[in-house]
């Protein structure tokens, strides 16, 4: 049982790595800038998924909970239960920040690609290199 779980976990991690590789390939080998932009978004998403995976947990004899206190009159029992079953909030907060930053960078690159097209008439880096 545990072995299967470990194996599945490795499959998940490995598929994330493969995504990372695909995205890097897209950034370095594809000629179109828009394609590079898509690859960048995939790359940063994959890094974020790693972070969340690091913060995950499956507590013994309980279900994992999102990091939100589930009941309002917070008693000691609620807090204890919460602390012992919620997943790690810190990577989630880091990822949130990273997603927004990635979005900002993506927006700017999108604008600059449009400007690039206005000046060069193409978004293909190979053609520009030839000029």
């Amino acid at each position: 049982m545990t072995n299967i779980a470990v194996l599945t976990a490795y499959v998940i991690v490995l598929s994330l790595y493969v995504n990372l590789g695909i995205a890097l390939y897209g950034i370095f080998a594809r000629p179109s800038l828009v394609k590079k932009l898509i690859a960048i978004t995939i790359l940063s998403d994959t890094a974020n998924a790693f972070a969340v995976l690091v913060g995950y947990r499956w507590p013994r004899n309980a279900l994992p909970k999102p990091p939100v206190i589930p009941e309002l009159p917070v008693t000691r029992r609620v807090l204890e239960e919460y602390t012992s079953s919620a997943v790690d909030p810190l990577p989630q907060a880091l990822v949130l920040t990273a997603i927004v930053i990635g979005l900002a960078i993506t927006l700017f690159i999108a604008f600059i690609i449009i400007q690039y097209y206005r000046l060069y008439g193409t978004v293909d880096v190979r053609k520009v290199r030839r000029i």
Partner: protein
Amino acid sequence: MEVYVGLGLAPLILTIASFALPLISLVVGDRKWFYHVYGLVFGVVALVYALVSYNMVVVLGKPIIYPFGGWPGPIGIVYEVDGLGAILGLLVAFDMLLVILYSWWYMWERDGVEWYYTLLLLLETGMLGIVYTGDIFNLFVMIELLAIAAYGLVAFHRSKKEAVEAAVKYSVIGATATTMYFLAIVFIYGTYGTVNMADLALKARPWLCLHDVDSCRYLALVSGTGYGNTLIATSIAMALALWAFTFKAAVFPNHFWLPDAHPEAPTPVSAALSGLVVKMGAYATLRFVYTLFGVNSTLDMVVSGISLRDAILVVLLILGAISAILGALVMVIQDDIKRLLAYSTIAHLGIVFMGIGVGLSSVDVGIASIAITGVVLHIINHSFGKTLLFMASGVYIDAVDSRSINDMRGLGKLLPFTTFALILGLLHLLGIPPLGGFFSKLLIYNALMNSGLVVFAIILVLSTAISILGYMKVIVSLIVPARPTELIGRVKEHPLPVAVLFVIALIIVMLGIWSLSGGIDYLSSLLNSVVSIDGAREYINSMTELSSRLAGLG
């Protein structure tokens, strides 16, 4: 409790100022002088805060901490400034003030001043944040802030083809690199369970717990101990992080964006980029290789005869050597003056990285300390020198409306003051003895020689020798030919840039004198905390002391 609001406030005020600028621009409209004054005021404010922080560090003699929100240690973000951070913060604030002053002249006639100053303030925020922060994730955010401002400023001349292309290249590769750094943070968090620098520094040196029982107890209580295979995760994190940092610092395999990006930016921004922004990569590398994972840390564990940290440092040395040679060689054949200066930046960053690479585990701490002093001194020297050169080149470019050196033949006689400053700057970067540049190169050279890395010392000299050719080409073509008759009368020197240039020239000379008269010792007394174990302990202790008191445990 000694908490210094000014430390945390310095970047924050700049941010809020730049938040407010578009709002103000809706009221002010087209009155450009207002934006210039606004930029200057906040430049001065930042300088004042940087000076105060510097003074604090010097007076107290130990790193100063600012906990944001009153949260202790690894739970919240802290700003932690030791000697290195304080010096670089002062450098950033001072240099940016000069850049803003120069921008008065450069941007006076151009449009988009409000956006320009907004981005410039963000750039300064990013740099101050990088040097002050004591948290690796905050470092990531600040690097991105710096990067986005830099991308925007590189693309500021939006109708120039090359500028836009450079911005595209810079931003695409920059986004990749910073994502890699984020991945490195994930690995570090995964294995150490913390993102605080002081905490990491302790966790990477578990044996320190034999001495510092209090810090260890506090940190073990708050953030536990390592998880998984620490060595493996650290090495992969270092590899990814150094990729990002060498990209930011434009060291050899990742240097290709710099000669496109730096020349295409507006001239004051070129000065800031070449003078300061690339140094942030070197600073982050220093932090990672010395403060966090220094000698005898987890990274320094010996695996089959080789310490991983040594391997990384040797790689840095080699990369530095290649970029020093490559930058110098390519510089010689450039015709575009700003491109030439950009390649010179690559060469100098190579020298800086060679200095960083000295701290191998076999090398004596004293020598490593000399090397780091040399590195920081070289960062300072090169900052001022390159700022000066870019600013002077801006004056020439404005005069002939071209960036080719050939078009500037004989221009030196028409612009005597600028030329004087330029020559001073070139000699300074070459390392002619009375000027500052000599001493930093000498220190790095000494350290390399003494640590047995003779090859690299020779490369340092060789790189300097090659770059003489490039610099001489500029000087000769500016001075020797006859003055271009068609430009007489049209070209004259504006007092503002000349004043700025003279201030920097004065600083350069002063740096030389200061280095001669004991400045080096002063600097190394500030910086030895970076290299030595005692310094690291101080770095950790001053964080945990304050934090445990804030947590109500102390």
